[in-house]
């Protein structure tokens, strides 16, 4: 992997990496260090002085029922978003892969929602399910089902999952389609000649060959559900009703900026840092393997 031929000198390369390092230090390392540092202190309510409390912020968080509830909400939410958007993405990719002609047209028609911001996706679905004017809530009411996601926590959860998964289908579709197209057709044909049906082939050949990409997508989608869905939740529910859709990243925001509980917010940031760190290591292991193949 390493080059054998280099340019000489050390001043020029140091100047070349300097911009990225400086920006990383100012906007990444310093704030991250600050988050770790603040997590060990408890500011008084007027922000005049802070008291060193060691790991008390963490101890408090891990026994705080609201924080634990937010953890559970995050797990339910990210699992539902990842699984549903991956399932639909795989389904559509499997169909598009069957076509000899026209797969390209379908690809164009399916991938553009990737460009829609989560916050805007939230607005679109909010409009459909708005209690007074929404089309979906109107017809649900006509069917005798009362829809009010501003009061009903389960409905709110369903709506944020729906809006978050909807925008993610195109990403998963594209990766699964690329994975399917990389499977040599000769293997599939050999199985077909031996009399294996479509579903048999799908289950015994295609799914195992797709497992690395599925694993990769699972990690990436969980990271997406953890962080990028902030816009969906902020526009549709603002974490409510009664915190039923407050995922961890939303709680960092609402405790830090809305309630100004800086010590707790910093401790939450640190916990998220650790979680993302673990996911990054897992993903890097995958990338490394892919590179060496």
């Amino acid at each position, binding site marked *: 992997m390493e080059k054998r031929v280099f340019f000489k000198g050390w001043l020029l390369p140091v100047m070349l990496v300097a911009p990225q390092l400086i920006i990383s230090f100012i906007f990444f390392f310093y704030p991250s260090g*600050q988050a770790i540092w603040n997590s060990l202190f408890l500011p008084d309510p007027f922000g005049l002085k802070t008291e060193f409390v060691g790991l008390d912020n963490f101890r408090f968080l891990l026994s705080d029922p609201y924080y634990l509830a937010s953890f559970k909400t995050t797990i339910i939410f990210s699992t539902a978003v990842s699984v549903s958007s991956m399932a639909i993405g795989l389904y559509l990719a499997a169909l598009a892969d069957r076509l000899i002609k026209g797969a390209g047209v*379908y690809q164009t028609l399916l991938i553009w929602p990737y460009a829609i911001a989560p916050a805007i996706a939230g607005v679109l679905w909010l409009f459909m399910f708005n209690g007074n004017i*929404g089309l979906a809530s109107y017809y649900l009411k006509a069917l005798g089902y009362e829809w009010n996601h501003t009061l009903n926590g389960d409905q709110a959860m369903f709506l944020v999952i729906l809006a978050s998964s909807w925008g993610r289908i195109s990403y998963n579709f*594209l990766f699964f389609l690329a994975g399917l197209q990389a499977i040599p057709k000769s293997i599939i044909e050999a199985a077909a000649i031996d009399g294996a049906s479509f579903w048999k082939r799908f289950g015994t050949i295609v799914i195992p060959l797709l497992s690395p990409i599925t694993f990769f997508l699972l990690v990436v989608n969980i990271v997406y559900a953890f962080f990028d869905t902030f816009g969906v939740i902020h*526009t549709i529910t603002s974490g409510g009703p009664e915190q039923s859709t407050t995922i961890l990243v939303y709680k960092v925001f609402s405790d830090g900026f809305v309630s100004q509980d800086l010590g707790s917010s910093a401790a939450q940031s640190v916990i998220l840092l650790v979680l993302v760190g673990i996911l990054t290591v897992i993903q890097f292991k995958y990338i490394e393997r892919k590179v060496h193949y």
Partner: protein
Amino acid sequence: MVEKKKSGYWLTHLGLILGILFIFFPVWLTFVASTVTQDAIIQPPLPVIPGGEFFENYANALFRGAPEGYGARVPVMQMMINSAIMAIGITVGKIVISLLSAFAFVYFRFPFRNLCFWLIFITLMLPVEVRIVPTYEVVANLNLLNSYTGLIFPLIASATATFLFRQFFMTIPDEMVEAARMDGCSPMRFFIDILVPISKTNIAALFVILFIFGWNQYLWPLLMTTDPDMQTIVMAIDSMIPTGDDFAHWPTIMATAMLAMVPPVIIVVSMQKFFVKGLLESDK
């Protein structure tokens, strides 16, 4: 397709079309709502065929804001310009610093090279949302709130582009450098005249991904900008939505939502080849 059965063929198309309808429907409804009058919206059910108010509603959204009596009147033209500046700033900034540092890592040996590499690697994948409070303080202390610099720079600190370019530079044959050196080519000359031109497709692929990333930023501009003249269109739409039973001019809101979607969608569709490449290779 291995077998050729007619029924399976049509079912395949049917399944795909159903998927496309599911994906298009919310956007279609938004488009319809942006072309009708307020009265048509507040008396459900909403029509599913566009009305005749297209120009009126979009002109309102862009230049005048919602009509009198529906809260603050904020035209979104300036917001679209802000979004474009932020998106292009993030895109160009990230590509430039990444090209430079990837060049240094691949073609030079310098002190603390491995340390620098790991420092940059750590920034991979850690989103700004995680360190949002202290980053806000840094930007506030630097007096960069309500500025383009403050909107752009914190989002440049990420390593994905650096890694993509590094991977690509590794695949370039060593003979290229040898030949360049033999001809007395300086490092920067090699970078500008050879490396950057052969990285064209990678740059285009990253451009699409990063433009979308930048345009769609939500939380950061939401915290950063208190001045209405600095708001971006994606973040501003949240303040237009009514809470509770307040009155809102839905046609204007929906036209704004359409305007927030159109630029990134046009970029994805018109640069589809690069978009697919960028997504599959950089995954962020």
